[in-house]
C-alpha cells in the first residue's frame, strides 16, 4: 500500500536536516510493508488532498520562512480542516511557529501565520534557547533533540512534553511543543524522528489504523535508535545542555 509523505518546500525549509525525518519515516514504512512515496511540494496547487498521509513542515531562515508562508497562506483553511480531522503532521521550529496566528519579530514587525493553531510567537533578543534538550512526554517517554531559537511561543494547548534540562516554548516555561490531534509541533530538531522512534511509530500507527491494517511494531528493530538516545541522554546528564 502506498504511503504518501508530503515534504513541504524542502528547498526553502532545509535548515535543520529535516530530510532525516523523511528518510526515517520512509525507512520504517518499508519495514511495515508499505510503499512510501515522498512528494516534495513547491507548489501548493499540486497537493492531492485525498492522498496525504503525512505532512512535514521544516524550519528555514526568516527570509525563506516568509516566502513559504506566502504560498501556504493559500491553503491555510484546508490545512486546518485536515489537522482537525486528524492528519498526521510534524512541524519543526519555524514550521511550528508559523502554524500559529502570527510571528512578531524583535523589531516589532508582524508576519501573519497560518492560524491552524491558536498560538503566537514573539521574537526577542535577551536569550537564545540553544542546545541539546531532553523532553519528558506522557505518551512517548523521554525524547531528545537540539533546539536553536530566539522566538518565544505562547499557547494554552496541550504541550508535547516538559523540557527537563532547559527552557520550553518560551523563557518562562518548561512546556515544550504542542500535541494536537495527530499534529506534533516542536522546537526540537536533530532531526527529530531518527532518535525518537516512538514518534515515528506514532505517525505510522495512525496511518495503519485509518486503513484497518495490522500495526506490528515488532517488525521494526529500534536498537540503533535506543543506543543513539542513550548516548544523548548520557551526554546531556554529564554536560548539561551546553
Amino acid at each position, binding site marked *: 500500500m502506498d504511503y504518501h509523505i508530503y515534504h513541504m518546500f524542502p528547498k526553502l525549509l532545509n535548515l535543520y*536536516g529535516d*530530510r532525516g525525518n523523511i528518510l526515517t519515516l520512509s525507512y520504517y514504512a518499508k519495514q511495515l510493508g508499505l510503499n512510501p512515496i515522498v512528494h516534495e511540494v513547491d507548489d501548493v496547487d499540486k497537493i492531492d488532498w485525498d492522498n496525504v498521509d503525512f505532512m512535514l513542515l521544516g524550519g528555514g531562515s526568516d527570509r525563506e520562512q516568509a516566502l513559504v508562508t506566502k504560498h501556504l497562506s493559500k491553503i491555510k483553511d484546508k490545512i486546518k480542516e485536515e489537522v482537525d480531522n486528524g492528519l498526521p503532521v510534524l512541524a519543526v521550529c519555524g514550521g511550528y511557529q508559523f502554524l500559529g496566528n502570527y510571528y512578531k519579530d524583535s523589531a516589532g514587525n508582524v508576519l501573519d501565520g497560518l492560524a491552524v493553531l491558536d498560538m503566537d510567537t514573539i521574537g526577542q533578543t535577551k536569550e537564545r534557547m540553544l542546545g541539546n534538550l531532553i523532553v519528558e512526554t506522557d505518551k512517548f517517554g523521554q525524547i531528545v533533540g537540539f533546539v*536553536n531559537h530566539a522566538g518565544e511561543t505562547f499557547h494554552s494547548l496541550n504541550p508535547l512534553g516538559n523540557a527537563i534540562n532547559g527552557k520550553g516554548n518560551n523563557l518562562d516555561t518548561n512546556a515544550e511543543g504542542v500535541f494536537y490531534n495527530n499534529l506534533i509541533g516542536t522546537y526540537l530538531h*536533530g532531526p527529530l524522528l531518527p532518535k525518537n522512534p516512538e514518534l515515528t511509530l506514532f505517525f505510522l500507527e495512525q496511518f495503519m489504523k485509518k486503513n484497518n491494517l495490522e500495526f506490528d511494531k515488532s517488525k521494526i*528493530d529500534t536498537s*540503533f535508535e535506543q543506543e543513539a538516545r542513550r*548516548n544523548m541522554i548520557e551526554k546531556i546528564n554529564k554536560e548539561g545542555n551546553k
Partner: protein
Amino acid sequence: MSVLLGKLAITSSRLIGNRGTDIGGVVALKVNKNIFSKLAKNIENIILVTGTNGKSTTTNVIANVFDQLEDSSIDNRKGANMYTGILTSMIENYKVFGDNKIKYAVFEVDEGSVPKIMNEIEPKYLVVTNFFRDQLDRYSEMDMLVDKIDKSLEGKKTKLVLNVDDPFCMRLSNHEYIGYGLSSTIDDFKEGSVSDSRFCPVCGEELEYTHNFYGQLGHYHCNHCDFKRTQPKYELTSLKDNTLDINNHLYKHHLSGAYNAYNILGAISLLKELNIDDNIIEKGLDAYKSNDGRMQEIKIHGNSIYLNLVKNPAGMNMTLQEAEKMDIDNMAFILNDAEADGRDVSWIWDADFEYLLEKDIKKYFVSGTRAQDMALRLKNMGVDPKAIVVDNNFNALIDAITTKNALVVASYTALNDAKKALVAKEDK
C-alpha cells in the same frame, strides 16, 4: 624585543609538548601591539587565502610552488589560521640576526579573521575560494560575514582572486578582482539530491542556473536584476586524469577529489598573476602530496588508508562522490560535536551518503562523540545494520578498519588525533 619573547614562547610551548601555533603571537602582542603590521612590512607580496572549504589546500599548493623559487617565502602551512596564528608564523620566520626581506608570504586565513587582518595590513592579493554554510549557520550569518569582508576591503589596493562560480564570492566583485571558474564542459560532479537555496545576493530572488557543479557553485544569473557570473580570466576546461586544462595549458597534480580542481585552479590563477613561470608551477604541483588530513594517503599493512577532513554538507558530498570512485572496501566516519565541529550534528542528514549505496562497501565504522547518530544515518538509508560497527573510541577501531583499503572521514576536532593514530601505524 617582542619578537624575541614571541620566539621564546613558541619554543617553551613546544618543549612542554604543545603545538605552539598561537602562543608566540599572543606573547609578542602583549609587548608590542603594532607587531603584526611591523613584521608584515618586511614582506613584499602578502597573499591571503580565505573561504569556507579548500583554503588549506589552496594555500598548500601556492606554498609548494613558492618552495621551488629561489626567492624567500614564508607561509602558515604548519600554523593556525587566525590573527595570532599568522603572527606566530611571521615571528617564527623572523631572523634575529640577518636580512628579513621576504619576497612572498601566503597565509591561510579563517574567514572571520579577514577584517581584523585587513585592518592592519594591505596584502597584494586575497584569494576567496567559496562560502558554504558551515553546519547550520543561517544564511543571514553568512551574509554578515561577507559584508564584513567587503567593508574591510574598502580603500585597499588589495586585488581579489575570486571563484566566479560562487555567487557569494561574487558579492565581493565590486572590488578589483580577477576571476577563476569552471567551463560548462566540466561534467565531473554529480547533482546532489537536496539543493541549497540559492538566492541573488543583490535582490533576493532565486538565481537561475544553466550549469551547476556542486552546492551553489555553477553558472548562474538573476532574472530580476543584472547580477550574474562573469567570464573568468582563468578557466578550467578539463580535469580528467589528474590533469587540469587551464587556459589551454595542462597541469598535472597528485591530489584526488574533483573538488580539488577548484583549489588548484585558484592557486594557479594567483601564481599566474604573480608572473610565476609554468615550469615552476608544474614543479610545485609535482612536489605536493597531501600530508595534512586532506585526502591524505597513509599506507598501513600495505593497504591504502585515506584520511579526509569534512566540516559541512558541501564538503561531505564532495568526499562521498570521491569515495564512490575510490578503490576502497571500508568506510569510517568520526563525528564529534565539540564547539568547533558544530554542536548540532543534524547536517549529516543533508549530505548525500546515499552515493555509497552504489558502491560495494564491506564495512562501515563509526566513531566520535556522536557515532550513534552517524550509525543511524547509515542504517536509515538502507545499510545493513550488521555492516555497521560502532565505537565512540576511534583507536579501538583502527586495526579493523585498516585490514582493507579504507576512507576515513573526520570532523574538525577529530582530525588531528585520527591522523596521529593512523600515522603511528604507517608502514615503514
